[in-house]
């Protein structure tokens, strides 16, 4: 064997496999699958009807997200109809499969707006589908409220102008960072924090940036900040630095797969300070023994003791064979309620300008917290902090903004 052919073969092979490495799997949260919803076919009552479209990814990469979203929104609509509808009119839901993908979502939006004459849309779940839908809805003066799309671009256009007809029911990513900082400072009494982040992940970076900002503004000190990539398995070098810096808290706002690795290696290095993260920790695949003692911010907890939560869980379980609602179902339920509540406050379902002004002024007591809207049509609401302890995830506290 000639040494030069080793050279060539090696480089060729390494390049090919490096390309393959780019296709690493993304973690996908897998919420519990609620039961199928029965199809709703209510007859139009004398007072007329209001059509509300629900765009949910019932097929595609995240079908369980779609099912939860649909079920949550349908439950809210059913409750309103049982009370006699809104403004004397029956609410008719139109469910479309938008597949968490731009094209099908746009087709579905055009169909419900142009053919069905819908003026109100609940959806989409995924930001990448919600953003193109929001362009169409905003141009046609159709009110869209996305239950779960966290990307800031859903409600704010690329020119920086707010899309007046577009709202969302979930908090956006930076907010979780603020909530975590507030919780760390006030409840945990942390003075110093260490941040670990994946620089290539927008979600992680957004949370980390805003955590750092709020934490330092609140009088805390960031004693270290280290980056890694999503393909890393060995975090011992970073954790050695954490051990040197001795922070009161480590902020790790990544998905559960990274959290599992980091938390386990931290325990083996004898690190005892708590870890904290965001809703990326919320998965049935989170390693509860490794993450023991950690905290994460989330949209809602089924153990929350507020009466709205208990009532919702009871109603959801009764309608869907005892299923426990996940955060997606909760946010869809809240989104539908906010929308219908605004229609009621506006007193009309025909003039969407009145409805959007009513929505802007709303102060709604939802399952996921007290909701008002800020200038960018993002909700100002509380987040819950969950604690991983003794092999389960339990409700710790609610943090108000």
């Amino acid at each position, binding site marked *: 064997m*000639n040494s030069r*052919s*080793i050279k060539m073969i*090696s*480089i*060729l092979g390494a390049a090919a496999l490096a390309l393959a490495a780019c296709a690493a799997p993304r973690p996908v949260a897998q919420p519990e699958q609620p039961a199928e919803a029965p199809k709703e076919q209510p007859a139009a009552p004398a007072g007329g009807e209001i059509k509300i479209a629900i765009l949910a990814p019932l097929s595609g990469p995240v079908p369980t997200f779609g099912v939860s979203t649909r079920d949550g929104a349908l439950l809210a609509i059913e409750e309103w109809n049982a009370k006699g509808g809104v403004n004397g009119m029956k609410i008719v839901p139109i469910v479309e499969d938008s597949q968490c993908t731009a094209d099908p979502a746009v087709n579905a939006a055009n169909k419900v707006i142009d053919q069905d004459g819908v003026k109100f849309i609940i959806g989409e779940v995924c930001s990448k589908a919600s953003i193109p839908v929001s362009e169409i809805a905003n141009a046609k003066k159709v009110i869209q409220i996305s239950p779960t799309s966290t990307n800031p671009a859903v409600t704010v256009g690329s020119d920086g102008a707010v899309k007046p007809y577009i709202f969302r029911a979930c908090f956006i990513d930076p907010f979780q960072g603020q909530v975590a900082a507030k919780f760390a400072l006030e409840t945990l009494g942390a003075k110093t924090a260490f941040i670990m982040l994946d620089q290539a992940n927008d979600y992680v970076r957004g949370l980390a940036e805003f955590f750092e900002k709020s934490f330092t503004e609140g009088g805390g000190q960031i004693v270290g900040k280290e980056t890694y990539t999503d393909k890393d398995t060995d975090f*011992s*070098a970073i954790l050695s*630095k954490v051990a040197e810096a001795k922070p009161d808290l480590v902020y790790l706002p990544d998905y559960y797969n990274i959290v599992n690795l980091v938390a386990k290696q931290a325990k083996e290095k004898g690190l005892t300070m708590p870890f904290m993260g965001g809703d990326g920790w919320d998965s049935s695949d989170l390693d509860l023994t490794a993450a023991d003692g950690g905290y994460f911010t989330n949209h809602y907890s089924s153990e929350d003791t507020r009466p709205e939560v208990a009532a919702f869980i009871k109603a959801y379980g009764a309608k869907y064979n005892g299923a426990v609602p996940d955060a997606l179902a909760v946010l869809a339920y809240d989104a539908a309620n906010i929308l219908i509540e605004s229609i009621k406050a506006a007193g009309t379902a025909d003039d969407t300008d009145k409805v959007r002004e009513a929505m802007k002024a709303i102060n709604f007591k939802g399952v996921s917290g007290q909701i008002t809207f800020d200038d960018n049509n993002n909700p100002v609401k509380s987040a819950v902090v969950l604690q991983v302890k003794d092999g389960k995830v339990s409700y710790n506290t609610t943090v108000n903004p």
Partner: protein
Amino acid sequence: MQQASAEQPIAVLSADALSVAPRQSGAGLAWIGRGFLLALAALVVFILARNLLDNPRLFAQIVISGLQLGFVYALIALGYTMVYGIVRLINFAHGDVFMVGSFVSFFAVSRFSLHTWPAVAFPGISPDLSTLIGAVSVIVLSMIVCAALAVVIERVAYKPLRNAPRITALITAIGVSFFLEFFGALNFVFSPRFIPYQRPFDVYAYWIGAQGIGMVTPQTPAPDGSITFSSIFVIIVVASILMQILLQWLVKRTKIGKAMRASAVDKPTTRLMGVNVDRVISFTFAVGAAFAGLAGVLFAIAYPSIHTQLGILPGLKAFVAAVLGGIGSIPGALVGALIMGQAEALTAGYISTPMRDAVAFTILIIVLLVRPTGIFGEPEREKA
């Protein structure tokens, strides 16, 4: 050399043709390149020395994590180097055999509780002995499955191509690698999820320092100035060294080892001597894969989150280690792997974590430029 060229005339010819151009560009450029590398080396030594003096404890801690990685890479690199030594094939599916090893142990532990069988079969047995036997059974099972898988791969994908140009077999190896990754990602095989790995035994952390040595627990954290390491680190180092010794003995002292060395030098003549060369090749694949299986289990225990593309980066780095040590050389694989482990850990510790893969592959490029045969490589002779 004669025999290799006869087998793969196309690959060798094209490689020679490619490398003619830089040779003609003059000695002056070569000196600039050499000067640059020397400056780079001086810079690396300077940075390391400064950090060592700055905080020796942190430096030692980082070296320990580098050793842990290095010994895992050494186990994987053995498979690359042995297979290359005997069939002149860079078996890129090797990293994925490593991945299969960790999944086999995952299913053995989580689904079938194989690690607890001694306690179930002999209720009176001491828990420590039970854990030991159980963990060894899990590891042996993974090694056997990986060995069997490698033999199947060799028979199905590589053997029919033994007389084809070498590049054909190489591309097939990449194909096999993709097949294992994406077949494994199917929901009814391993699933594409990141799976939390359940360890067959608990891993403990210890500290060592001026005050002596002790175990780290939530109640008794490591004292200041001490260095921490975990039990899995010790296990990886011991297992890797044992396997190196075992392989040296196997290659140098046994009949099959002699047959392997003979097949590496000259297959037709070896065949004339009455050796079944195909069986020797299968055996080589099986041994390499068994080591990868062992590495897979230890890696999953050390970094307990597994997914189907787990093997890509460790596999590639082990391959770089094998090239660095001199591909085909067994001690070279160990030395190369230890250097790779340190390079990675020190980069992560003193530059930044995302840089470590860049540094790993920069080493590959530098080795290929400066000494393509690697540290232990012998340029003009066939190696075992």
